[in-house]
């Protein structure tokens, strides 16, 4: 399923009946909430009007809130397990809306050096594209700043993507967004890159455009170049262009880890009081999934002409 027309026909054949079912139950619940809300608030206001007590209104509000929360959760659950899971399956992926990329995987990638104090995510998708195993999920990590007014700051928010890499390697190689060179220019920025104590050696690659976009660190000068062939550098640039956002990669333990910054909560059900059958939103899910699956193709991970099967 690659094109929008494909998705449209998939939507008509596979999704619409489920959506209609979901829509009916959504309408019933939304109707109930509205009805109970009106009754509860009406009675509460009446008590207020006759200056008897404010409590009934407060109680009605609280009760309504929990009633809404409970049903909204149920609705989200069935939306995700019925609709989003079906779209994922059409892309050859299995979907678990409650799971996410594990903290161990996140730490293993070493893309972010700040230790997160808050770590959460959902919408884990796993699958195999031809020969390449992939898994990805939404992830949001934050650290707490010290001092008097403690507050949380985002380290990463977006999609964290892990795939098997098609070449053998033993070291660690990082392709990170080039922050210092963008801010300080190439000479001074290059100096700061070199002085980065958290990272292994700085690697200077011959692709000028790639160097402008990324700072590359690796434990091994030759291995870094073995992984980052001229073709792969071009592909990583294409990947960045495609997502048009910050992309960071690491190559560790025969895997490639990719952190794609996306400031949006993906694969969520629409609000309980609007229609479940929102085609545009579903198409957006499809487009995002397609792009994530395409990473394998863009990075050419299925080419297995080296010793790794």
């Amino acid at each position, binding site marked *: 399923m690659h094109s929008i027309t494909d998705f449209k026909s998939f939507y008509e054949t596979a999704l619409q009946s489920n959506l209609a079912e979901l829509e009916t139950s959504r309408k019933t619940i939304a109707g109930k909430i509205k009805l109970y809300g009106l009754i509860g608030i009406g009675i509460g206001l009446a008590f207020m009007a006759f200056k008897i007590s404010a409590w009934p209104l407060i109680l009605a509000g609280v009760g309504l809130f929990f009633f809404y929360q409970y049903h909204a959760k149920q609705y989200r659950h069935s939306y995700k397990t019925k609709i989003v899971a079906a779209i994922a399956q059409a892309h050859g992926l299995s979907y678990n809306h409650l799971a996410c990329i594990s903290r161990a995987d996140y730490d293993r990638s070493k893309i972010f050096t700040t230790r997160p104090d808050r770590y959460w995510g959902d919408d884990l998708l796993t699958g195999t594209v031809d020969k390449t195993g992939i898994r990805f999920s939404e992830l949001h990590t934050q650290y707490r700043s010290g001092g008097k007014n403690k507050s949380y700051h985002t380290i990463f928010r977006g999609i964290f993507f892990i795939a098997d890499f098609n*070449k*053998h390697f033993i070291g660690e190689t990082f392709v990170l967004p080039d922050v210092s060179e963008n801010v300080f220019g190439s000479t001074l920025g290059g100096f700061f890159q070199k002085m980065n104590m958290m990272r292994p050696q700085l*690697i*200077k*690659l*011959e692709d000028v455009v790639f160097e402008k976009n990324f700072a590359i660190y690796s434990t091994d*000068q*030759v*291995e*870094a*170049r*073995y992984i980052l*062939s001229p073709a792969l550098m071009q592909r990583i640039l294409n990947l960045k262009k495609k997502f048009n956002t910050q992309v960071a990669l690491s190559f560790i333990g025969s895997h490639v880890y990719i952190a794609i910054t996306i400031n949006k909560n993906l694969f969520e059900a629409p609000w309980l009081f609007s229609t479940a059958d929102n085609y545009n939103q579903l198409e957006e899910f499809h487009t995002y999934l397609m792009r994530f699956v395409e990473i394998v193709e863009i990075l050419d991970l299925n080419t*297995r*002409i*080296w*010793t790794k099967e």
Partner: protein
Amino acid sequence: MFLLVGIVIILLIGAVLTYNNLVGSRNAVENAFGTIDVMLKKRYDLLPNLVEVTKTYMKHESDIFTKLADLRARANTANSTDEKVAIENQISSTVKGLMVSVENYPDLKASEQFTMLQRSWNETEEQISAARRAYNAAVTAYNNAVDKFPSNIFAGIFNFKRKEVFVIAEAERQNVSAKALFNS
């Protein structure tokens, strides 16, 4: 007086740092060249296996095998770096030709042993090219140190000379033409 001493000390520290940087980058170049040698050795070790496996199937390509045997012997005796590089380049293109002619031998192409060898060959080729790129990067860093002010002053005094980067041989730059190989 103190000012003068201070300036001299700073200049001295600067001189030591610049000189050490020059030596460091020269050693990096030597180290990178060593890596290429290691990778070439790896590929060199694969060669007899490759010949052994393909020979039994490819009875009609004896020319290629004689050429490879000859190249291998010459690589053993080569002394200068330039000569070494030239021979290795020839090995590369000859084996590429061999891989192309394998298309004519479906049995060989399907053989698991050959597939594995082909993969290993691809891998060493890729590693050699990575090692070359690493070497070129080290040479560029060294040349920058030799040419740029103020380290070029020390480079002049202590006789640090520019080094040449690896360039791919003319023959390798052209795509392998299957037809030309079969005719040769």
